[in-house]
């Protein structure tokens, strides 16, 4: 085994089976870790459910007002908006929209050095546990609000069988995009001492342009298109929800997935590049 430094080549992983093993171990570690935070999961799910009620009533009032005027709102009817709101509240936990400051905290404390010594690329080292975390959230934080919403309100269920696998793919892409976005804002910590402002900026944009407060299609058409194509945020929440409520025909759904895939590729590449620059710059204070 050779000499290892942060900026030298990482140990090469020898074969395919070993790689699969590392992937499985790392992602299941994320799953297990988050499954121990039971109180936090219950608290967050209860909060998402509360917001689900408030937003659903507002959206139902919007749909009611639109029906009175003789139409739909931006192509959604009332049950579609109900599904939109509750699945959206569930997805917040799956993609982990806010509140992930682990990398920023580790950069600040210097613990990040340990990550650089591991034989796995740091981006991958954070991504794989995050996928495990997302899987756990899907079983808890997604299922509960959607079930509550479905029991209390009239919800839209996908009419086309193909929508389910498309939705699954879209959620996976959303997790990747959101992870990459969070990684990048956290990595700002390599350059800024206090990352609160950047993290706050991310939280605001992700909620507003991600379609959490209102579906982005409520905006004037040109503006909505600009947000979908020009920012990664709709890829985090809005697009999986659009796919789920079948806002568009199958071709449209595929197009939306394409946008997500593009953003996922772009942002993950950016993560790797930013990480490389950061490692050349990082000075860890001893002590």
């Amino acid at each position, binding site marked *: 085994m050779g000499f290892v430094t942060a900026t030298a080549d990482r140990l090469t992983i020898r074969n395919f089976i070993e790689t699969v093993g590392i992937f499985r171990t790392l992602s299941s570690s994320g799953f297990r870790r988050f499954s121990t935070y039971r109180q936090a999961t219950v*608290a967050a799910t209860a909060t998402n*459910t509360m*917001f689900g009620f408030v937003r659903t*009533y507002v959206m139902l*009032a919007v749909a009611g007002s639109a029906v009175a005027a003789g139409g739909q709102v931006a192509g959604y009817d009332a049950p579609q908006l109900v599904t939109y709101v509750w699945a959206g509240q569930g997805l917040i936990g799956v993609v982990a929209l806010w509140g992930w400051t682990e990398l920023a905290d580790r950069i600040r404390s210097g613990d990040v050095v340990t990550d650089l010594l591991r034989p796995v690329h740091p981006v991958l080292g954070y991504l794989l546990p995050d996928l495990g975390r997302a899987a756990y959230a899907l079983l808890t934080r997604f299922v509960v609000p959607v079930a509550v919403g479905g029991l209390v309100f009239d919800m839209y269920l996908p009419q086309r069988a193909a929508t389910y696998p498309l939705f699954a793919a879209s959620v996976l892409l959303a997790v990747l995009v959101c992870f990459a976005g969070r990684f990048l804002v956290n990595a700002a910590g390599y350059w800024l001492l206090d*990352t609160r*402002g950047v993290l706050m900026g991310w939280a*605001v944009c992700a909620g*507003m342009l991600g379609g959490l407060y209102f579906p982005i299609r409520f*905006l004037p058409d040109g503006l909505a298109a600009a947000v979908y194509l020009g920012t990664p945020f709709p890829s985090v929440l809005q697009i999986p929800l659009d796919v789920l409520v079948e806002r568009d025909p199958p071709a449209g759904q595929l197009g939306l997935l394409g946008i997500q895939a593009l953003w996922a590729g772009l942002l993950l590449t950016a993560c790797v590049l930013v990480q490389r620059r950061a490692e050349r710059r990082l000075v860890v204070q001893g002590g």
Partner: protein
Amino acid sequence: MAEPSTLAIYRRLVAAQVRSQASYRASFALDLVSNVVFLGADLLAVLVVFYRVPVLGGFSLTDTLLVFGLSSLGFSLADLTVGNIDKMSRHVRTGLLDAVLIRPLGVLWQLLVLDVGVRRLGRVCSGVVVLVIAVRLAEVPVTPANLLLLVVTPLAGAVFFSAVFVATATVAFWWVDSGELTAALTYGGRDFTSYPMTVYGGWFRHLLAFGLGFGFVAYYPALVLLDRPDPLGGPAWLGWCGPLLAAVAAALAALVWRTGVRQYRSTGS
């Protein structure tokens, strides 16, 4: 050496916090701006909805803006002063609370000045601007009674939301990892009060608007200002109940807080 008064100590603690936060200039500026944008995001949600529909629960855009303005100014005042108490569960988990408990100053007050949210000043400023614009747009008649109500309502709202902040944060004494739970009633309450109560239905409205009292933060005062009868059939004097309700809420929150502190057990970390 003369001992500084308690008030002077708090003043120093706050000043130190302001200086420490402002010293990371880039981040502080971004933080201030983000906070203004945050209110902008809520406001944008209302505007976007009205871009698609002319009325919401029987209320026009200008009427809804008045409700929104009263609610968000009240909330942002509470958020500025007591908002950081929502980190309570972290204080319990990390054992910071133990350190706070042995100092000869009020526990709650210490926690409040510990991480005072100077950056949230941006939200208060934009809250005032939104309310003033809403009052103009809704053509609220300028009478002494209306002016009094316009001053009293955000203040009562601030006290009410502060009580909600403190009471929900107390949960952390029993339930260490309660983290986001506080947001359900604080930020959730703000979102709830931002719209006319007519939007909500059934038991949900009864529970939050009347059971927990959120209906009196902005909706009923706004009806008085707009000189509109309540579509839900409530009498007009309900609009003046805000301060009374805020006082009750504050008393209850103080009781809950004291109970929590008294039975606090350190997590040992």
